[in-house]
């Protein structure tokens, strides 16, 4: 039934490992809404038709004498309780709150730092460790948008990109999300991911892409929270890659870093 109604709900394609469960709750809730609306609507239309002054010239002081509506209200409450306790709370615990260790196997940690009006992506590189960052080191003109401390040994292999997120398929992506300036919201529609990016705090979120989908893995990052005059164009891109493609891309980045490092030395 949930599947049936989902075909009519205009949701974007779902390419994540967890999205199916969220969508199924969305489906069930909309089914409940539809049943209630149609049920109430039928009663309502019948009533306004039947009890028009012309058809029923004198009103009945008592009106409805049964308490069927109380049972109906209890039923609605029970269904809501089931959706809440059976679906929504455990789903949240599993999908949102169950965050893997950064160093766990098959987890790809990525820092994402939002700013007006761009998404800065910070990869830990092959060592799996993020270099130290500091606000005063932010230097937009010198290609250091997230303020990485170049003297930190963990930073040597760190890769940063702007508005381009590359993720390997079938790996848990652990995003550590924050913002430099105002509140943004990181929204990947086909990945069923949305989370506010709040300056001063870093919140984790996770997702796993399971398919490249209809658009060969190329999708957009949207900002969902009003963040200023450029909010509407705070669009980033992400690319769902196979592990080989991702490794190849990361390898290229490491070559580029080495080349740049030699330049610095010279």
């Amino acid at each position, binding site marked *: 039934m949930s599947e049936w109604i989902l075909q009519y709900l205009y949701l974007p394609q779902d390419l994540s490992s967890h999205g199916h469960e969220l969508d199924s709750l969305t489906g069930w809730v909309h089914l409940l809404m539809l049943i209630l609306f149609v049920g109430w609507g039928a009663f309502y239309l019948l009533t306004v038709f039947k009890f028009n002054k012309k058809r029923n010239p004198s009103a009945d002081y008592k009106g409805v004498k049964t308490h069927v509506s109380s049972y109906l209200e209890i039923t609605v409450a029970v269904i809501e309780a089931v959706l809440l306790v059976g679906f929504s709370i455990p789903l949240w615990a599993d*999908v949102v*709150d169950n965050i893997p260790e950064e160093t766990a196997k098959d987890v790809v940690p990525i820092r994402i730092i939002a700013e007006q009006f761009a998404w800065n992506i910070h990869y830990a590189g092959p060592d799996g460790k993020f270099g130290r960052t500091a606000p005063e080191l932010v230097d937009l003109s010198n290609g250091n948008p997230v303020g990485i401390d170049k003297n930190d040994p963990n930073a040597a292999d760190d890769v940063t990109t702007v508005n381009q997120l590359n993720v390997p398929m079938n790996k848990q992506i652990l995003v550590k999300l924050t913002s430099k300036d105002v509140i943004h919201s990181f929204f990947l529609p086909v990945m069923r991911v949305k989370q506010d990016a709040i300056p001063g705090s870093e919140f984790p979120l996770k997702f796993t892409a399971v398919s490249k989908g209809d658009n060969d893995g190329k999708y957009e990052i*949207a900002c969902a929270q*009003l*963040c200023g005059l450029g*909010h509407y164009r705070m669009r980033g891109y992400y690319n769902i890659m196979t592990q080989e493609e991702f490794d190849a891309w990361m390898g290229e980045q490491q070559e580029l870093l080495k080349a740049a490092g030699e330049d610095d030395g010279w």
Partner: protein
Amino acid sequence: MDASVKEKSSHDDHSHHEEAFIWKYVFSIDHKVIGIQYGVTALLFLFFGFTLMMLMRWQLAYPGEAIPVISGLFSETTMPDGIMLPEFYNSLGAMHGTIMVFLAVVPLVVGAFGNYLVPLQVGAIDMAFPKLNMASYWVYFVGGIVMLVGFWMPGGAANSGWTSYPPLSNIATTGQTVWLLGMVFLITSSLLGSMNIIVTIVQLRAEGLTWMKLPFFTWAQLVTSFLLLLAFPPLEAAGVLQLMDRLTGSSFFMPSGLVVSGEVLDIAGGGSPLLWQHLFWFLAHPEVYVLILPALGIIAEVIANNTRKPLWGYKSMVYATIFLGFISFTVWAHHMFLTGMGTAINAFFQTTTMIISIPSVIILTALMISLWGGSIRFNSAMLFACAFLPMFGIGGLTGLPLGLTASDIHLHDTYYVIGHFHYVVAPGTIFAIFAGIYYWYPKVTGRAMNEMLGKIHFWLSLIFINGIFFPMFIQGLAGVSRRLYDGGASYAHAQDYLYLNEFMSISAWLLALAQIPFIINFFISWKSGQKAGDNHWDATTLEWSATTSPPLGHGNFEVVPTVYRGPYEYSVPGKDKDFTPQNEA
């Protein structure tokens, strides 16, 4: 008229002439005049807030195209060559929300309807504190002017959303400071007004008017006033804190290490942006019920009167309203589900959110069941009241997937949310306001509004308002974010749904045209409408049965009524007329 002269002269031995215009109509302490002042001012703001939205809808339907005909009215800093700038779009969005909530709808349902009707329904000669009442209106008026002044500030009016989330609002242009000042006035006004209504209902009820004989409208006003009184002070405090952040360099809402446009911000830091959200929503969620409860009160009166039978489940409606009032203080963080909440806190707020749906369902069901067995008169007021039920129903039902966090993840901050709360407030509360205007207009003016114009107004409004808001659910499910200057045109996932923007915009402009019959009706009927009797609708509550239309200037009643029975004694078996007024012995 005579009574006002008498009362004035009894206070003042030196003069026997009528009250001067300024004391009678401007700085009046008569709750009825103040109610009308609130009503007229708030209707103007309602129209102004609607106009802002119509401008936004041009930009959403035709992003980046010059607005035709009226482009000359705007400055270079808002719409150069008629093309709207994103800054101006954001100002319009923030001010549309602020004006509609704080300057139009709440002042209408509480300031206008509450002020005018509560003393009449409880059989009081005025509000408990008439001078506070006058102060409440004038503080509101000043707050409104301050809000409008924002448009002339450098950088335009406030542009950080009606929610004003810092740090964005803290670093925003001067309009935000003006917005905060305006809010301080509006909140103060609400506090004065709500205290007055509470004391009036508790202390000034006529003899025999026990709690379970109060009209449901007055019950709704009582609970609403408690919500205003208890929920607004935190926002007033928060507003002052944000003012200090902006003006004195404090950092209540600013964390350390902010970097704006590549520069480290020179602030103390150490504050929390989420603190504002908690304080804001601690008000703004109860505020939602401030918008809804008086509307339900209006609908209850109109339905009981026009079905010619008592409300079904009056007591359960009252208890549900009180329960709803309490629970409304425990749901605020469901506006903040995506701010990094853990499972425990999240489970708490979605549970309270599901719980609060129960009293809402009880009230709506009782109103719907009240129709059964009635002898329904479909006049303009009743049409709006009848349409309110399914429209408010859509608003309520679409709250479910937003209230459950797992389905909220995808829908949060999309057009689905916009559709949801507009169904509650626009074809919900604003339809209730129209029902109330058609219903009580004969009481206020002594003349009835034209039914033909009223019905045209109703049917056109019903069609076009759904044309605006229903497509928003489709866009929201598709993942189109709210508050986008180009209506989603930048995003690939929105492309298939952009055609709806034009449809919604045209519906909005047609909705504006549909208000013309109402505006004509409103003014023409004032002087030349059909004369109404004292009890035009054969109603039972005191404002109809115990006083004239319009009621006496100062004092309301020639004889202060005594109450003998419940509020909705319609079609009592064995009686020869189909209504038995509360004050009939």
